[in-house]
């Protein structure tokens, strides 16, 4: 029972802070709420017997990516969302059309919920098939990652390299050596 309480607590924090991320105009707060959301998500990962993912979530997302966001927000120092009037020169650029996206998101939730209701076997508890030993074993994780998924790993490393070079090139001021 405390398990389910923890779950609802974490899930609640997660959903609410995610909603707050998109719910206001100040990107600084958005970033901070997202960090909170990620922390809650890390908690969910721990509950799913994936402590390594949880830690990685904190290190990579909260510790690196979000700092980067924060850095950019501070660097640009233009935190408040433009309160400028909508550009209404085109029917597809009016706010009403933009809100269709939000409506679609709601539709998506309904669709996914419906899909879940139809799939009965997904109602089983997550731990019903196996114990936590395998999934929480970091050694096992490393073996699979560097053995079966070695190519994907290497490809990802190249992606990171390319992204790094690309980011440097893009963010550099023109004329800088």
């Amino acid at each position, binding site marked *: 029972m405390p398990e389910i309480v923890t779950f609802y607590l974490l899930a609640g924090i997660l959903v609410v802070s995610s909603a707050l991320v998109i719910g206001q105009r100040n990107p600084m707060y958005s970033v901070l709420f997202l960090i909170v959301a990620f922390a809650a998500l890390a908690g969910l990962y721990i509950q799913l017997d994936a402590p390594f993912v949880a830690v990685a979530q904190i290190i990579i997302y909260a510790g690196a990516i979000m700092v980067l966001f924060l850095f950019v927000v501070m660097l640009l120092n233009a935190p408040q969302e433009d309160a400028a009037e909508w550009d209404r020169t085109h029917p597809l650029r009016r706010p009403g059309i933009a809100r269709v996206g939000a409506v*679609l998101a709601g539709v998506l939730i309904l*669709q996914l919920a419906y899909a879940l209701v139809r799939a009965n076997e997904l109602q089983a508890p997550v731990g019903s098939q196996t114990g936590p030993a395998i999934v929480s074993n970091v050694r096992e994780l490393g073996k699979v990652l560097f053995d079966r998924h070695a190519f994907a790993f290497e490809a990802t490393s190249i992606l990171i390299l390319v992204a790094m070079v690309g980011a440097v090139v893009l963010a550099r001021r023109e004329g800088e050596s």
Partner: protein
Amino acid sequence: MLALIPLFPLIGFVVNATLGRRLPKSVSGGLASLAMLASFAVSVTVWWQLVGMPAEDRSIDQVVYTWLASDDLTLPLAFRLDPLSAVMILVVTGIGSLIHIYSTAYMHDEVDSEFARYFSYLNLFAAFMLVLVLGSSFPVMFVGWEGVGLCSYLLIGFWFKKQSASDAGKKAFVVNRIGDYAFILGMLALFARFGTLDFQGVAQAVGQVEPETSFGIVSIATLLLFIGATGKSAQIPLYTWLPDAMEGPTPVSALIHAATMVTAGVYMIGRNAVLFSHAPETMLIVAVIGAITALMAATIGLVQNDIKRVLAYSTVSQLGLMFLAMGVGAFGAGIFHLYTHAFFKACLFLGSGAVIHALHGEQDIRNMGGLRKQLPITFSTFAIATIAIAGVPGLAGFFSKDEILFETFAEGHTILWFVAALTSLLTATYMSRLVYLTFFGQRRNDAPAAHGHDHGHGHGAHDHGHLHDAPPAMALALIVLAIGSIAAGYIGLPHALGGHNVLHAWLEPAFGLHEAVAEGEADHASLELSLMGVSTLIAFAGIAIATFIWLWRRELAASLAQTFAPLYRLLLNKYYVDELYDATIVQPIKVVSQQGLWRGFDVRIIDGAVNGTGALVSGGSAVLRRLQTGSVRTYAGSLFMGVVVVLGYYLWR
């Protein structure tokens, strides 16, 4: 070895075409002549090789490489030397060499780059002509066939700045295209019928079947090939380009439009003697066309005033005689005449070139006269060649022409024989007229307008009382060719005169069939002798008529023209054939092209379709592009909409 023969001129062409503009005339001209001489030397060598072989299998083959290889057609770029092509390469390289040498003097007034261009064309022509002659299959021959057509076009239009020259070049090219098209169709028909395009293969295949008595596929194929030949060899109906081709430099007229290229059609028929003799219908057509062309061209030649045009019509006429020979199955006689004709017609053209050269571009014989004394070498060689073409016994033209006449008669084509005899008479007449008007009498115009008809930049009006005879290079060519005009006929000395007709024996395996005429038979010998007498009579009669009218009673010519004014105009205007073609073919095509195809089809339908497509797209885009807002959000929205719809579809399903 065989590949070397066309290769030398090709090298000469490449060098002159790429480096020529930087080379002095002596180098570029010398190089071109040297290339031809080398080619000639190789030709003599291979010919000698051929002589050393047994008569039945005198044939040298060389496959250079596989040109095309597809499912059921493997086509090597192969050359084949047999007695027939041996004769041809000797004529082409031999006379070609002489004309190259002659040209170094004749074209000397051109600037370096033009000079090199001329020789590069000339070499290229020689290379293609040799490919045509040596090719062992229709496609290879066709490469040469097209190539010489191209060179002919380039050389006729050599002085392309002159409108008439460039028009003449185009005319030659376009008229030749018609023939070439028929040639391609003929090739395709043969391939469809026999599955091969090799000359020997076709001959063997066609040897398996009986000659067609009705008008079958072999007849169609040969007729198409013959149409190709009429284009290249200037026969009715496609002969009109040849007289106009005289716009080119005179040596070109001599080489291409008299001695070699225009005989390609004759050669082609000779090459496929077996094939053609399996299509009697076609053969008859060939003979009739040849005879009519011969007579018609001879009559036109009688009244023309341009020295080169007279020779051009003479060429057409002689080619007609050759086709007549081919048509009656006297392939040997036809080739024999081709061979002798090459000598004296080249000599005549080069002689006329010497005259034109001396007179700084004057070509109208009415403005000539009395040149006998001033241009002795030119006169003597020209006269010898004239006698030869007129058919005076003892010279080359007599033997070959007489053989044609005899064979025609012996084959039973009496009417054709009569036409040919008449042609001979006319030939003797107009050739003598040409000599009398040019070389005898008094100079009729002391100040010929140097209108640069042949020489773009003459020497201007300096002392015309003293004319220069042919320079050494030209004289050499003239003399050699004059000797040839006398002696060339003796290799075909008929049996009736105690000869052995070496040429016939030599050519016989090449035709792959025994000539219908059994030579040396006693009853024919007497016939031949009597016909010879008639020929001789005709020749002298022709000369006599000319002598009477144009040497002794000059005013008679004018009064005759007065008396038969309509006929005279008809002949002078070449039977209005050009006008006829213009009215019946050229103008309708123009009208249809301009009004129908261009303004109607192209502008309305094709352009309409293209522009319509464009307008449709741009119109549609003008509407659709409104969807492209440039806003990322809109794009993401459409994408997300797709996600929801697809997911919804799968859930609802």
